[in-house]
């Protein structure tokens, strides 16, 4: 059988449309006279001429071009409706040397996915957007698009688009060109031969910008949908040239590619040493062997600590230092802060639980072993959660006579006053920490462990403030 080649298919297309299921492998699914078909040829030709087929990724939209990836001899991905710019963003970052094309219709780009295109344009992603404006939802059978002209009859504007109710056609090029980042924005029409030649140049220019990593380019194509607009070829061209261009003037809206330096993307590293240096913390001095355990009886069972006060008193950081101490001495520790609006009310609290076993509930909300209260509301709210034999440490500058039980041990420290005398109101938490440490050393710890506790505190302070400078609350 002799090959009959009438018009050569551009080499950017597959010779046979192998991705297309079913028996039809040579033809596209577009209706005769459809703008999508014309634009596809211009793109395919440019892809072949620029020899970029092996490093182009085409993102197909939801719309009549949903199967665009059947035809182009490059990598293809099908996007949810309107989301192509987000997918293109990711691929332009992961494949910085590739040409990434987001192909979209007017419903896809200017309605459901409008935010995505604006944001990708504003970020200046290195991608090319081909935007087919046919003033209609083609695929779903001819409903009103954001670009439908005033008075235009569609399935959902059966008496003509009313600008009072639905506004005016959205002008995408005019909007996108207002952003700083995009480098090239042009509107063309897929109508007469001279217009199509201009469109051909625009396609090439946009793709070249991507190849040169110049950033974001968008070309809009006024495009025919003769089926849904119920027009013949002549009427269709007249509609594009006379009606659509009134609302959508053709021309270059922005072209600053020559002035822009190529966008730069970092190279990821997986080097073991570099990853460890970045993620593993510094090993502080005063560490102990993994099997080290304090022998004092107080540490042999789970220990629950609750710390509470005003935001800004250092309640969370005090808890954090204690948690770091626990970590450094091989306890399992949990530190649980109050967060969010609870904090905005001006109060803060945290629970710290130490155990040589697995920590169960991280919430110190009953039978607490140690309670630190830095203001009166904390006493009122939490004192009931202290164990009958627990220890209360409170700021005696702000709290008077907390109603403790007969077997509870109570230490009132004039922490705020002492801190103020030292010249820094924010030191009240350190004063309390000092008191707690001294209390532990004097009342709870074995003789030979006291010095180690000092070392642990010092290391914990270093580590806590090195790693968590933001824990001021």
């Amino acid at each position, binding site marked *: 059988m002799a090959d009959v080649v009438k018009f050569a298919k551009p080499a950017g297309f597959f010779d046979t449309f192998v991705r297309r299921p079913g028996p039809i492998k040579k033809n596209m699914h577009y209706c005769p006279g459809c703008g999508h078909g014309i634009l596809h040829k211009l793109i395919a030709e440019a892809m072949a001429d620029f020899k970029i087929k092996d490093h182009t990724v085409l993102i197909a939209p939801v719309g009549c071009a949903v199967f665009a990836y059947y035809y182009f001899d490059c990598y293809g991905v*099908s996007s949810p409706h309107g989301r192509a710019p987000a*997918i293109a*963003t*990711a691929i332009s970052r992961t494949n910085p*040397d590739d040409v990434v094309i987001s192909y979209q219709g007017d419903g896809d780009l200017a309605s459901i996915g409008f935010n995505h295109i604006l944001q990708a344009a504003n970020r200046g992603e290195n991608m090319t957007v081909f935007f087919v404006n046919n003033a209609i939802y083609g695929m779903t059978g001819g409903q009103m698009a954001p670009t439908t002209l005033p008075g235009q009859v569609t399935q959902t504007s059966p008496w003509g688009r009313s600008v009072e109710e639905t506004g005016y056609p959205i002008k995408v090029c005019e909007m996108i060109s207002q952003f700083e980042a995009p480098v090239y924005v042009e509107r063309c029409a897929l109508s007469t031969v001279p217009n199509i030649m201009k469109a051909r140049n625009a396609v090439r220019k946009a793709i070249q910008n991507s190849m040169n990593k110049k950033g974001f380019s968008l070309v809009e194509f006024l495009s025919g949908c003769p089926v849904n607009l119920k027009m013949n070829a002549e009427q269709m061209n007249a509609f594009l040239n006379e009606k659509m261009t009134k609302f959508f003037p053709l021309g270059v809206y922005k072209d600053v590619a020559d002035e822009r330096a190529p966008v730069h993307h970092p190279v990821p590293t997986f080097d073991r040493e570099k990853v460890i240096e970045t993620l593993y913390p510094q090993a502080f001095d005063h560490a102990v062997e993994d099997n080290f355990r304090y022998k004092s009886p107080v540490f042999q069972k789970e220990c629950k600590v609750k710390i509470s006060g005003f935001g800004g008193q250092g309640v969370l950081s005090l808890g954090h230092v204690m948690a770091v101490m626990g970590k450094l001495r091989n306890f399992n520790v949990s530190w649980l802060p109050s967060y969010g609006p609870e904090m905005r009310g001006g109060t803060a609290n945290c629970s710290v639980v130490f155990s040589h076993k697995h920590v169960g509930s991280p919430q110190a*909300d009953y039978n607490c072993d140690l309670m630190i209260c830095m203001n009166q509301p904390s006493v009122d709210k939490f004192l009931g959660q202290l164990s009958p034999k627990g220890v209360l440490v409170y700021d005696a500058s702000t709290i008077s006579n907390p109603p403790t039980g007969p077997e509870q041990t109570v230490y009132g420290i004039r922490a705020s006053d002492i801190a103020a005398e030292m010249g820094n109101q924010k030191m009240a938490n350190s004063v309390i920490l000092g008191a707690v440490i001294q209390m532990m050393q004097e009342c709870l710890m074995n003789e030979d462990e006291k010095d180690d506790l000092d070392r642990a505190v010092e290391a914990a302070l270093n580590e806590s403030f090195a790693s968590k400078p933001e824990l001021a609350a």
Partner: protein
Amino acid sequence: MKRTNKILLKGNEAVVYGALLAGCECYFGYPITPASEIAHTAARLFPKLGRIFIQAECEIASINMVLGASAAGRRAMTASSGLGISLKQEGVSYIAGSELPAVIIDVMRGGPGLGNIAPEQADYNQIVKGGGHGSYKCIVLAPGSVQEMCDLTVLAFDLADKYRTPVYVLTDGMIGQMMEKLELPEPKGRRPLPEWALNRECPKANCIASIYLDTGDLEKVNIRLNKKYDEIKKNEQRAEEYHMEDAEYAFVAYGISSRMARTAVDELRSEGMKIGLIRPQTLFPFPADALNRAVDRGVKEFFCVEMSNGQMIDDVKLSIECRRPVTLINRMGGNVPSVEEIIQAVKAKLGVK
């Protein structure tokens, strides 16, 4: 400088450490309490290793960025909380349908609607049962500690690759905000490009889509997907059992409520009650085998501790085919059931003083 792998981190931070150590290359997210520390930590650490961090315009964009990066053959993740996850569902369904790996972290907060930012577990149904359109499932991992926030994130990437499917790490505001000591795992190198990826090193015939107009074709895809889910059910059930050896009663709880239940086990055992805890670490697949073993070993009754209106309890009952009574102990609205509440509920149900 000497380095150690022992570190004190918030659960949310541990997710990012796990992700980077697993070789994740891309983070895409949108701020939301109580998940934001994941974005903060990712913004700080991903660029330090030359990896990609984008604050997307919304959750819909972030999940589609994950789709794009994953299609390009790179390990990618996103994180959010309930309402943001609701927005992602369209994208997750596409990812499942396109058979792409992806890791999604849901740090649950109170719902419905804007709800509040306190911890809840009421996204269970939308995460475990599919959530978006179509007959698909995601693997769902449920960390019970900060260590597991890290470790299960690593596992999530491996399972996502193994089964080419989205994997959720389903956690809550409290585990996200809480700090614990953990051991960081060894860093993994770059995951080699899968042969289906959109990358010039892979075959050019590669394309990623989930559209099959032919009903026969689409049914075949569905059958294949569901075979995959059966395979996952068989291979990937994970649960931690605590004092189940001689248990006559058992709590079933995951995430933060399992921590309260665990302490309740200790307290009730100290009073002589033979009770244990089954803590699902996978919610899909649900650890039905562990539950059925418990029934066979003589557990008389289960107590399901949940911070929702009782969403997991359905899976408990289905798994054991209602062979034992299952009682719900729950709080909603962002309240965490206290150990005392849990103990009281058990005693009340069993008529114990």
